[in-house]
């Protein structure tokens, strides 16, 4: 067996919490990486995957420090080095591709200066040579206008391009190891494919080893040779990509994979509420936008003539990529962003565009739940205050009756009653999202507008929230409008799907037939771009280049 390129032995990393307590966040991790091998670190948030990856460069974030163990990279012992010696290794031996290239590029410097900076810092080659090399890399990474793209500023290129440029930035010093820190997480699915594909081919050509940090098993399956599953700062399982996907051993890995399996949604048979109209929400020719209004039309038109109907007890999925206007649709329906034309009918009653002119009863019936529970819950209010307010506001509940109802609501979202005395900052992400949901339920609504409510959550936690939504629907006869960029999430909970592209609905069809029968070219591109839990998926994927050029935001 050849000598591994990287060998990590019993790595321990400690951190000091805000409260001044010392905790161990990496608890004795050991693994090797062979030359030319790509190893994936996979785990949920807090699993320590990024911390481990950064420690391979001898870097720990503020408050963290390497407490024990050794990291050997080729011939250098990273853990024993001085900060000065580590700086000599960074960029030349090991380099880094960040999660958000948009944030990792200095906004005030030209791209070329930043891509060739490693060469300038370590004095690797003359500037002209470095620039020539950068242009070659731009070509290899399939960037458009490879000759001139370096002269632009970061804000002048798209997100997908910036992510590929960040790879060029990492590769210019010919490192032996490249660390990819969730490099496609911030990208749209149609963009992600191209980036993944060029990363894979460049790594193969250069014969470099890689560490690929991700929370997404399907993405990792396409690029990694070996997968390390992490949880709570410990390694749970190590195996080849095929073995992990087909024959996982650890219960947690099985759970991760199970959360991926598409669960086809069963329409709910609801007790018929004869007194209420069949259609909960009817939207006709809705147009909304932002910016200064001139002649009744705002400067930036986002939504263009959106129409649909949502029947009681059914769920409507709205799917689209960033900039498709799906969140704007929810805001226009809720009246947060008043529509400038078109109509919204709730339970057969026409709503005014601006929520300030709607009655309390109208507002009560449709509740909106936002993506980020962190910002959706007031950090200064206790959970009980947060849940009690809609009860007082809509129903005038007070005292013991209100308290009882708060406990009941917490029980509905499967949270213990004692949690009501906590502040949101003391809850986990999943708990916060449940409280967020409970607040909407407090209004006893007919319709809940869910804006990407599972997107910021870990896979397993998100699956549990989806289960909860289904259960609540059975019990309370709710209808959901479910906005998401993730096809499998929409398939798991929705009866019908609207596909949105640049503010327009390009296709509407039953969710069950989405994958197989979508007709609009954009819908087909979207469906085919979702990574599958299959190591050969990316290699075997063929997309019509014209279609890609027309719709993908690369």
């Amino acid at each position, binding site marked *: 067996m050849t000598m591994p390129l990287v060998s990590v032995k019993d790595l321990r990393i400690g951190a000091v919490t805000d409260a001044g307590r010392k905790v161990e966040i990496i608890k004795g991790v050991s693994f090797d990486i062979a030359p030319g091998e790509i190893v994936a670190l996979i785990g949920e948030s807090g699993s320590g995957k990024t911390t481990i990856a*950064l420690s391979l*460069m001898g*870097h720990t974030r503020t408050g963290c420090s390497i407490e024990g163990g050794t990291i050997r990279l080729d011939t250098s012992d990273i853990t024993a080095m001085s900060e000065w010696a580590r*700086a*000599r*290794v*960074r*960029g*030349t031996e090991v*380099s*880094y591709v*960040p999660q*958000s290239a948009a*944030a*990792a*590029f*200095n*906004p*005030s*410097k030209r791209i070329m200066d930043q891509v060739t*900076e*490693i060469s300038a*810092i*370590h004095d690797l080659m003359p500037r002209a040579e470095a620039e020539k090399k950068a242009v070659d890399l731009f070509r290899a990474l399939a960037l458009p206008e490879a000759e001139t793209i370096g002269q632009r*500023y970061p*804000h*002048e290129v798209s997100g997908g391009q910036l992510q590929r440029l960040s790879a060029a*930035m990492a590769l210019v010093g010919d490192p032996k190891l490249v660390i990819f820190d969730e490099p496609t997480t911030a990208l749209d699915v149609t963009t992600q494919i191209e980036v993944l594909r060029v990363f894979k081919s460049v790594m193969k050509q250069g014969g470099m080893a890689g560490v690929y940090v991700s929370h997404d098993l399907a993405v990792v399956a396409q690029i990694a040779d070996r997968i390390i599953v992490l949880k709570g700062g410990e390694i749970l399982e190590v195996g080849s990509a095929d073995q992990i996907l087909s024959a996982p051993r650890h219960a947690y890995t099985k759970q991760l994979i199970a959360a991926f399996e598409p669960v086809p949604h069963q329409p709910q048979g609801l007790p018929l509420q004869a007194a209420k109209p069949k259609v909960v929400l009817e939207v006709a020719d809705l147009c909304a936008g932002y910016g200064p209004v001139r002649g009744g039309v705002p400067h930036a038109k986002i939504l263009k003539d959106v129409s649909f109907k949502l029947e009681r007890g059914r769920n409507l999925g709205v799917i689209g990529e960033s900039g498709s206007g799906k969140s704007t649709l929810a805001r226009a329906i809720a009246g947060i962003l008043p529509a400038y034309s078109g109509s919204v009918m709730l339970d057969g009653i026409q709503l005014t565009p601006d929520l300030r002119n709607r009655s309390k009863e109208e507002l009560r019936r449709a509740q909106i739940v936002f993506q980020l529970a962190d910002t959706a819950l007031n950090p200064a209010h206790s959970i009980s205050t947060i849940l009690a307010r809609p009860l007082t506001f809509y129903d005038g509940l007070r005292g013991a009756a209100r308290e009882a109802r708060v406990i009941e609501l917490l029980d509905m979202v499967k949270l213990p009653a004692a949690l009501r005395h906590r502040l949101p900052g003391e809850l986990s992400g999943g708990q916060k999202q449940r409280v967020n949901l409970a607040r909407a339920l407090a209004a006893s609504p007919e319709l809940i507008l869910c804006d990407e409510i599972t997107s910021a959550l870990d896979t397993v936690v998100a699956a549990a929230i989806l289960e909860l939504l289904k259960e609540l629907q059975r019990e309370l006869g709710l209808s959901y409008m479910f906005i998401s960029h993730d096809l499998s999430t929409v398939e798991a909970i929705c009866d019908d799907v609207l596909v949105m592209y640049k503010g327009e609905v390009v296709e509407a069809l039953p969710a069950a037939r989405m994958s197989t029968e979508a007709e609009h070219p954009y819908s087909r591109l979207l469906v085919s771009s979702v990574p599958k839990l299959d190591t050969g998926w990316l290699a075997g994927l063929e997309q019509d280049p014209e279609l890609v050029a027309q719709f993908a935001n690369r």
Partner: protein
Amino acid sequence: MPQSLQPWFLVIQRLGIALLTLVIVSFAVFFATEMLPGDVAEILLGQAATPEAVAGLREAMGLNEPALSRFIGWLIGLARGDLGTSYVNNIEVVELISGRLVNSLKLAGVTTVVSVPIALSLGIGAAMWRGSVFDRIVSMLTISVISVPEFMVATLAVLIFAVWLGWLPALSYGVDVSSLSAILKAYAMPVITLSCVISAQMIRMTRAAVIETINTPYVEMALLKGASRKRMVLVHALPNALGPIANAVALSLSYLVGGAIIVETIFNYPGVAKLMVDAVSTRDLPLIQSCAMIFCVSYLSLITLADVIALLSNPRLRR
């Protein structure tokens, strides 16, 4: 609009806003001074004035016209460089102010040249070696200076340099200005005092601005490329902190024109701030209004300049 024109459009917009603010300010200055208690004509004529004489003087001075028309007349005069005539000694206000303004600008200029380079390098240095002994000493000194009244800084300087060491004269004006060393000596005390006061503010704000940009992902990225601490701060953080730093410098410098009142008093330095205080005690409205306008113009032009620098240093707006 073509992209290349956009920054200039923004610059012109800023200038427009500054001009508009100036008009609002002049309105406020004019009516605030009008509201000063005491009738000008009565004050000018003294205790023994007969009602007829007061009425006559009011008529002659145009005080009976509606306030708005007097305001517009005053504004037109300002635009033409006519600041009016002093009520007290019938001298053109321009003449009264010009000498004093030159004095103030000289003092401000020397102080700027001394303090800005020192303050910026100390602020950037403290941010670069954050938490080091150097940073702590700088922070402690700036806090002490900020916390202490200006007159204490000045008296301390007098005590040390003039009384104990005897190096410099305690007063700065009216001394011999024939040689360079004499001029240096004459300006030293006020400049030392003012430099201490404005540097402390600039150091604090510069340090904060640079530290804020150091905590960004792109500076961490530079670290992961193997950049030294110096390179991270000077090449990556500093260019992005230029806007806030320019703003801090502008705020501090604007203080030099009107805020130097204590220094002018202690060192008996004839600047505009003192002129204005004297004008208030004699109810010399045209003089007060002109001084107030000078302060506001200098503040607005410095702030606008900082705004434009911030604008042009940001490639997102530049291109």
